[in-house]
């Protein structure tokens, strides 16, 4: 097997430079690569284009990078939980490309799967369709969407093995598998790293072929955005 383990988050994020394009897994704060984000905040890498469904909150996740103005451009579907984000966007400090969530997921998958473009009905007739080719299939108009790739994709999994195979937990899976496919270099941080052969080959969500570096993260905070409970 091919050994993908790196020593720590420092080694994992080596080579991430100013002005690169990064994909970051997660939905809201669920399933985000906390360790790598913290390291990028420490490294103060600037001018980044970040592809991520959301932009974290003001004091966690990608929000921490926004506070330091490390991000030049965000490519996301929803950025509603972040005041600093909205401020930077409205003043024009931050470029923002808002993409329908399904198109974002599929464009990442396409990037990893060698499919340069596909048609989708999402966004037809809206400002999302601006400058995009429209084609009618079966009487229904669709727009052409192109693949997304990144210099580095950074994903977070529940378990991983030394060959880079990943298993996610519950809804922390979200964008991680597609982004893992679409990175030129994909970094996986996992809660538990096990030797190859310990994960059931039938139950792996991301095959190790998509992962170039893996390490076990430390001290996951796993903050919850909207704690919602029912009365007992």
């Amino acid at each position, binding site marked *: 097997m091919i050994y993908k383990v790196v020593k720590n988050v420092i080694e994992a994020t080596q080579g991430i430079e100013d002005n690169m394009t990064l994909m970051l897994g997660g*939905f*809201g*704060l*669920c*399933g985000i690569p906390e360790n790598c984000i913290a390291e990028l905040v420490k490294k103060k890498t600037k001018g980044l284009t970040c592809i991520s*469904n959301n932009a974290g909150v003001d004091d966690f996740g990608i929000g921490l990078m926004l506070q330091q103005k490390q991000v030049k451009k965000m490519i*996301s*579907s*929803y*950025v*509603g*939980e972040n005041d600093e984000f*909205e401020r930077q*966007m*409205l003043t024009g400090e931050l470029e*923002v490309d*808002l993409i*329908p*969530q*399904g*198109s*974002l*997921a*599929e464009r*990442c*998958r396409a990037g990893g799967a060698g499919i340069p473009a596909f048609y*989708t*009905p*999402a*966004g*037809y*007739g*809206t*400002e*999302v369709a601006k400058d995009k080719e429209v084609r009618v299939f079966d009487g229904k108009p669709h727009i052409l969407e192109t693949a997304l790739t990144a210099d580095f994709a950074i994903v977070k999994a*529940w378990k991983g093995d030394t060959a880079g195979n990943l298993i*996610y*937990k*519950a*809804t*922390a*899976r*979200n*964008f*991680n*598998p*597609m982004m893992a496919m679409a990175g030129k270099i994909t970094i996986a941080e996992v809660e538990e790293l096990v030797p190859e052969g310990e994960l059931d080959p039938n139950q792996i*969500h991301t095959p190790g072929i998509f992962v170039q570096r893996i390490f076990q993260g430390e001290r996951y905070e*796993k*903050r*919850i*955005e*909207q*704690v*919602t*409970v*029912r009365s*007992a």
Partner: protein
Amino acid sequence: MLDKNQIAQRIAQEIQNNWYVNLGIGIPTLVANYVPKGINVEFQSENGVLGMGPFPFEGDEDADLINAGKQTITTLPGAVFFDSATSFAMIRGQHVQLTVLGAMEVAENGDIANWKIPDKMVKGMGGAMDLVASAENIIVAMMHTNKKGESKLLKNCTLPLTGVGCVKKVVTNLCVLEIKNNAFYLIERAPGVSVEEIKNATEGTLIIEGNIPEMVF
């Protein structure tokens, strides 16, 4: 006039047996509380879960288990988790029978605007554009008028669109409307609300055919 829970309750009556249903944030989320007895339904959340159950009891929250509104949830037996691409394959591929979502404006041709107020609110469309572009059944849950009393059921949307010609049914605090032939067809009135009130609150073309019954809960 209906309150938010009653709007949700009225929408729940539209759910048919064995449907998969996607509920948006806000009033739509409340629909899950009013599914009629004997109706089997599975709720999908576009962040990657089918078979959502109620919110957890305090202390049982799991950071790895949330819905698209980022709220902690639980799952029911038979639930399944999947990635975002598969989730939108379900939505785009019309495997989800009903989408319920909110709106800022709906037009008489079925256009919907619910994601952006230029220079003011730019949170993003999330999954709404995929949902409205693909769903066979879309029910919009909304207040009939805005805080200034202006109609949100219009001849043409004034805000940036989320989708074109896709809304088939609207349930507001005042009534149930069906959209066809470029018009709002009045189907039911909220208890105690007159046809006249609905007329006055609707900017778009309103068609009133015969006697309009009150909703029955």
